[in-house]
């Protein structure tokens, strides 16, 4: 197996030289401020010991591996050193990725190299065995060697964060994947088998049988006695974990509020003279926080935190986004109300684009600060109403020369089989109605009574308010 750098045993503390003036961010430090020897999380062939050492000593990783192999041939001290380092050198925590020289994922070439080195080591060992030092080789390659191999399997499997958990609760042993279970079982078999064979070979089994039975019984007794303690341990762990989750959640909320609300409030304090700007900032912030809290993928919903920057997948989200943009750009209040929803597609996309255009027009020309937007998806059509109570205009009079407004909206609608209706009365405001057909399967089964019948009578069941 690949070997170890300095032939000494565990060496968690590096040489105290001043070679590393400024440790990279995220490096573990000793209390004296010296960077700690750690094993990288990625880029390791076996346990990451060689890579860690190489990074720490700033020598090529190949040299370290060769040294380990060389030492391994010398009565197995390399293997021992590697194992000790593996056990005692901590793995670099998550997120502390900035390793000085090593942390790239192990490429196939490096992997090949490492296996080559290991093969050379094994060959050298065999040669040494054939020459003379049979007793040691028998010891190393015999049952104990197998046991060590099994232990290595288990440690490799249980490495990383899982190892820490494993030390505390037995449930941590079983990894998530099938493969890891098999590796664990194989490793355990090797360890137990190797040790047993070793014991049988070394000892007169019949002589120690009663002793073994006594030991077994003692172990069982200890297990039974400590059951309450185990239960409490597991329970405490659960409590602690829950507390940690809550704490992390609080921290996340605090961080979000700091990033968003506090920053905006600070901006508002500085801009307090400019009412329009304050309004714009406050509106934008309110919308952002609301989305974060209550949005379709918002914080308060089960699906967890939202990923900003994605294109919205549903009509309601796209419309809200467009309304937000218009709000921000023109400092008007846009209040979207959506009933039903539809997935985005070419037609719905055109609908949203046209609605955005209508909002922009209302913001620019109506002269009022508030625009109502109502969208509904029902019976195979999606309708959007954009309405303002502004100055309004005469629809027939404008059509001749100012075609931009109606073209960019009506043209879009026409191309997607929809239509746009503009209703405007000078002095009373404007309403633009946009309609496109949408594919069914958006959650709205069509068989239902028409939404607007002309009956002007109350149904018998409807009485006066209670």
């Amino acid at each position, binding site marked *: 197996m690949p070997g170890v750098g300095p032939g000494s045993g565990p060496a968690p503390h590096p040489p105290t030289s001043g070679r590393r003036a400024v440790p990279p961010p995220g490096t573990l430090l000793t209390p004296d401020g010296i960077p700690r020897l750690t094993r990288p999380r990625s880029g390791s062939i076996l346990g990451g010991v060689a890579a860690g050492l190489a990074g720490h000593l700033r020598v090529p990783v190949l040299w370290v591996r060769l040294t380990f192999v060389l030492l391994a041939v010398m009565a197995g001290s390399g293997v021992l050193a590697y194992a000790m380092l593996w056990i005692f050198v901590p793995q670099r925590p998550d997120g502390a990725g900035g390793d000085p020289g090593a942390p790239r994922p192990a490429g196939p070439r490096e992997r090949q190299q490492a296996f080559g080195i290991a093969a050379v080591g094994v060959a050298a060992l065999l040669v040494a065995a054939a020459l003379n030092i049979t007793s040691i080789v028998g010891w190393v390659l015999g049952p104990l060697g197998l046991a060590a191999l099994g232990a290595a399997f288990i440690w490799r499997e249980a490495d990383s964060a899982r190892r820490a958990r494993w030390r505390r609760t037995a449930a941590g042993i079983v990894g998530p994947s099938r493969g890891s279970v098999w590796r664990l079982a194989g490793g355990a078999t090797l360890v137990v088998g190797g040790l047993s064979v070793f014991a049988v070979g070394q000892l007169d089994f019949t002589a120690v049988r009663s002793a073994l039975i006594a030991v077994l019984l003692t172990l069982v007794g200890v297990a039974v006695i400590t059951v309450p303690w185990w239960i409490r341990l597991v329970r405490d762990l659960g409590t602690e974990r829950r507390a940690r989750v809550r704490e992390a959640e609080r921290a996340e909320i605090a961080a979000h509020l700091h990033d968003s609300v506090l920053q905006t409030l600070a901006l508002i304090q500085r801009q307090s003279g400019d009412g329009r700007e304050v309004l714009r900032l406050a509106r934008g912030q309110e919308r952002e926080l609301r989305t974060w809290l209550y949005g379709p993928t918002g914080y308060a919903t089960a699906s967890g935190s939202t990923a900003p920057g994605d294109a919205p997948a549903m009509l309601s989200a796209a419309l809200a986004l467009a309304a937000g943009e218009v709000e921000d750009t023109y400092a008007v209040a846009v209040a979207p*109300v959506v009933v039903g929803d539809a997935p985005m597609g070419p037609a719905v996309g055109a609908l949203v684009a046209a609605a955005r255009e209508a909002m922009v027009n209302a913001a620019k020309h109506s002269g009022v600060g508030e625009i*109502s937007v*109502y969208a509904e998806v029902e019976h195979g059509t999606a309708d959007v109403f954009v309405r303002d*109570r502004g100055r309004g205009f005469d629809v027939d009079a404008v059509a001749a020369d100012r075609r931009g407004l109606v073209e960019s909206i009506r043209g879009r609608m026409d191309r997607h089989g929809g239509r746009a209706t503009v209703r405007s009365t000078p002095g009373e405001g404007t309403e633009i109605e946009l309609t496109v057909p949408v594919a069914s399967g958006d959650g709205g089964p069509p068989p239902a009574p028409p939404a607007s019948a002309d009956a002007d009578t109350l149904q018998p069941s409807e009485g006066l*308010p209670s």
Partner: protein
Amino acid sequence: MAGPVRVFLVDDHAMFRTGVRTELAELADDRLVVVGEAGSVGEAVARLAVDPPDVVLLDVHMPDGGGRAVLEHLHERLPALVFLALSVSDAAEDVIAVIRAGARGYVTKTISGRELADAIVRVAGGDAVFSPRLAGFVLDAFSDRHGPAAVADPELDLLSPREREVLKLLARGYAYKEIAAQLFISVKTVETHVSSVLRKTQMSNRYELSRWATDRRLV
């Protein structure tokens, strides 16, 4: 109703209570007068039970259960007391929950003082106050997309076509009198439709609500 409408504020933020009070006072509207305020569910329940005002402006999010808890404590005992929810949240589940618990209307805290005063006077007069957003939620809640399976009492749980029409115009941002003009009916009829929608919202069964909420991943 003789004399000004007596208004009581319930909100756990003292600053907001003061703000509303000041704003209503600045309007110098002789149609209403603020007679008291409370900062917690317990205080509100105790004081409202002793001296009931005409209209309670009720915050939705408070410790100890919020506006819904106040409604649950008092709505049965004091059926004459009118609640108007005033919340910073316009999340669907909040709106629907307090309306079902018995609030007569729901407005958000971004409402202007003038509109708030109008809303108070309107609910005091027995009318329901719906914001466009609220109308949207109700339409959504009652929409027939769930099919008939969940509806135990169709007479109660479905909105009449006319009511839907009124709600849709409300959601589009029309005022009551504009709706009346649009539909060629009287304002009084519009108010009757809206109030009956409100009654249905309050009385429609919980099963439908929970189904609706689950569909929308609200719970």
